[in-house]
């Protein structure tokens, strides 16, 4: 197992190398550079000083040259400095990643907790009105974009229910001046701020998961071993939840393994809609402000997570399915 993981990590090095090239190239291809964005329009800085600063920052070199310099710093652990937030990029990611994680993990757990029983019911009653209802419901969840649903919620719920905040993660007053009620009040404050984004994310995650659960259950529910389980005299519940679901879990685990790392990379657009201070919002802001070092770092971070996710799902696969063994 250990050998397998090491091998997989080593083989992902070239993949990562190519990804960084693409990311760096794309980011550099954006019109405008850091300096112009930083100085803003109507700046009084002379052309001469601009050129000088560009040369100092290395922005006058060709893109491949810049890439090599950037890569060199990346390898030595230096992700650069975000000029908009005036902080090292590593620190920025380290802070905001947990906000994203909080939002995503709650939504994922809620989504799963709802999707598993619903998906199983759908499979058991395949073709019934109930099954069709949930199918339509989850198709909505998959096809309606999160930002659209998010805005609808803000409009219809947030605007009408005064105690549900429509944006941010904390009450701005208390966030700046401290919570008089202590940690419990802070938790409560974050929780109410989470309501709307969590509803949106849970809806879309429920939709995806319930489709998976339903389809993989439908596949196993008519298998011979399910009939064998019934013939043993097991309760129908045991037959479905133990014998059938254990088999249906196999494709689900693959999906989940891929999903776990993305908990950290954030729900990019949704975070912007709800002004949730997560990695996704940081990424969008950094793009808008041409904070290139932050943009590239966020994208590379997502890419690394994606690769880890693939590895994780392969490892998890072997944990639930005895027929699959990973070895070097």
């Amino acid at each position, binding site marked *: 197992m250990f050998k397998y993981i090491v091998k997989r990590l080593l083989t992902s090095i070239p993949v990562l190398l190519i990804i960084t090239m693409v990311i760096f190239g794309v980011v550099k291809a954006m019109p405008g550079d850091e300096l112009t964005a930083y100085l803003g329009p109507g700046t009084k800085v002379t052309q001469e000083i601009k050129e000088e600063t560009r040369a100092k920052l290395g922005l006058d070199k060709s893109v491949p040259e810049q890439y090599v310099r950037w890569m060199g710093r990346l390898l030595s652990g230096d992700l650069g400095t975000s000029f908009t937030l005036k902080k090292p990029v590593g620190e920025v990611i380290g802070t905001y990643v947990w906000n994203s994680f909080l939002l995503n993990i709650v939504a994922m757990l809620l989504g799963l907790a709802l999707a598993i029983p619903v998906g199983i019911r759908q499979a058991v009653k395949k073709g019934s009105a109930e099954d069709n209802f949930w199918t339509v419901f989850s198709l909505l969840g998959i096809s309606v974009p999160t930002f659209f649903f998010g805005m609808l919620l803000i409009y219809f719920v947030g605007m009408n229910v005064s105690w549900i905040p429509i944006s941010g993660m904390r009450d701005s007053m208390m966030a700046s001046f401290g919570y008089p009620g202590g940690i419990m009040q802070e938790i409560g404050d974050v929780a109410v701020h989470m309501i709307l984004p969590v509803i949106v994310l849970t809806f879309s995650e429920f939709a995806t998961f319930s489709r998976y659960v339903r389809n993989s259950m439908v596949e196993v529910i*008519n298998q*011979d*071993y399910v009939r064998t*389980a*019934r013939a*043993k005299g097991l309760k129908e519940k045991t037959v479905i939840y133990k014998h059938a679901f254990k088999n249906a879990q196999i494709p689900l685990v693959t999906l989940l393994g891929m999903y776990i790392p993305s908990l950290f990379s954030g729900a990019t657009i949704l975070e912007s809609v709800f002004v949730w201070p997560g990695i996704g919002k940081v990424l969008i802001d950094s793009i808008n402000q041409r904070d290139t070092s932050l943009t590239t770092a966020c994208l590379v971070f997502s890419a690394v997570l994606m690769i880890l996710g693939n590895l994780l799902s392969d490892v998890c696969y072997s944990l639930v399915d005895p*027929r699959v063994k990973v070895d070097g």
Partner: protein
Amino acid sequence: MSKRETILDVENLRVYFHTKKGDSKAVDGNHFRMYEKETLAIVGESGCGKSVTAMSILGLVSEPGEIMPGSKILYTGNDYNLDLATASIDDKRKVRGNEISMIFQEPMTALNPVFTVGDQIEENIRIHEDVSSEECRKRAIELLGKVGISRPEQVIDNYPFQLSGGMCQRVMIAMALSCNPKLLIADEPTTALDVTIQAQILKLMNELKDETGTSIMLITHDLGVVAQVADWVNVMYAGKVVESADVRELFTNPKHPYTLGLMASMPSLAQNGARLNVIEGTVPNPVYLPEGCYFADRCTKCQARCLKGQPPVIEMPNGHTVSCFLYDGNENEELDEADRRTVAEVLAMLNKDSADEAFDDEKTVIIDIDKDQTDGSGGDR
């Protein structure tokens, strides 16, 4: 012969599958008795209702199938007196795997791939008996040894995919026998296995029957298997028992034209190089059963009266019964030219009707195929 004690009495068993085009009569008025320590073989070709009969005993017939009202499946082993056709699901569950257990055709797919062999055997014991887990494991190992698995202590922790088909079938048998059932239903237990393994499994079943006193209901389409293990044989055709007799009696003195046809179509080493006999035609579609004898269109001895009504059950010596007009005492004249034409016309019409309707609505055809798979009657895949 000592007194034969009845353990299962099936009367007028009808299992219909409700399809869009009407009821598909998978089993239509089946009746038989099972006695203690005896092996009953149910023989017939694909789709004749053998598997559905077995499934209905355990209540495993699934939607859209239904055991029709009026059917009786009376289980009387171990002082039970339970009509399984009408029993509640809880009562049925107590019997399943405990009093009556079942082994299936495909051992590789009938075992759950994600649990170890031991888990699956122990589970069966633990549902029905209150035993500690060490005791349970010990019994499972013992059972595996009994069904002829060497190194049972290791095999118990194996997953089904690590075992061969024959081993898996032995595991299935061990599982089925784990609670000392009174009745073991074996639904084509050897079909998926190669011939040498078949012989071993049959021998094993015979030995275990003698040892434990379990009655066996053997479902098969292989007359060779029947001759090896059965005491009594029921021949089924299109959901009905057409002939029922002691195994010796049946092989030496078959009466029903269908049975005769089956015997004739067995390959024999003695007739070297001869062309194998076949019974022409196919089983009628169970949704469109004819008014007369279901076998009439394939029968070489078809009479005019065979097309007009259902044949009576004729009792013969030694409990041998056959349901065929040939033996009803009336004169059996060969069909004359006019009769033959009528027969041919009626049959052509029947076939045309069902063929037309089948093509009318492709959906129905698909549903029928689906049904065949889910009810398990597609036994000879």
